[in-house]
């Protein structure tokens, strides 16, 4: 069967790809997409640990499943609000570039 380490390494790599995207992309929508990558990497970890813990304990563990569901919910809420903010700022400034979004500057 598959070693646990493979999942952890794959998730760590996906998380780092997302981190690079968040730090380096100019477009706000790109940054949100990279955040999605990072959240997905966390979910892979949680589901892998759910499998491992269930295997050790013998019965299905509820807490990891609840955690995964929470990550899904928070990701959906974050995307909805984030995209609404981007559309609202785009309407004022005609730009999706983060560096040019200076509406809050005094």
């Amino acid at each position: 069967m598959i070693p646990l380490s493979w999942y952890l390494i794959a998730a760590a790599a996906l998380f780092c790809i997302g981190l690079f995207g968040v730090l380096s992309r100019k477009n706000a929508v790109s940054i949100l997409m990279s955040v999605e990558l990072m959240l997905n990497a966390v979910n892979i970890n949680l589901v892998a640990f759910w499998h491992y813990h269930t295997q050790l304990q013998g019965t299905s563990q509820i807490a990891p499943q609840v955690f995964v569901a929470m990550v899904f919910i928070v990701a959906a809420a974050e995307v909805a609000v984030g995209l609404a903010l981007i559309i609202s700022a785009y309407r004022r400034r005609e730009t999706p570039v983060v560096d040019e979004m200076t509406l809050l500057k005094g």
Partner: protein
Amino acid sequence: MSGLQVVFLIVAVVTLFSGVMVVASRKMMHSALWLIMTLLGVAILFATLQAGFFAIVQVLVYIGAISILIIFTLMLTRRVMDEETTQVIKGWWLPALMAVILFGLLAGLLATWEDFQGMLNELPADVENLAAFGTALVNPAGYVIPFEVASILLLAALVGAIYIAMERKEKAE
């Protein structure tokens, strides 16, 4: 190497390659389509972990809802960025270096854990036990408080999103 390991390696390579293309594509729409590919790969990884429910939820919520939202936003804001030659900031090597260092640190830290080489054995087919999961979500002795808080968070986020994105005519003058 067993068949499942080969499947895992193929899916993981495709997922990570799509992930790199999400952050490396010059065209935003290509980036969004690669994101869908990555999310599908993650769903297949869930399926290989025998978490069939979350694989389906991943397809429904991420591919069905979130990526459609992202594509809609791209279509509403696409004008400016398509002619740009680059999508990344000037000093992009610094985040790249940071990501590589973080990956090295994470891998090194995980390798010191004694169960790191543990094998994931095949569980019985009905292991997910969705009835117990669903009951725990509405059980006062279980997770009803986090469940309700998450519901209210989602509702507030959606109402807030509608309010923020709404076009106000009097301000448009």
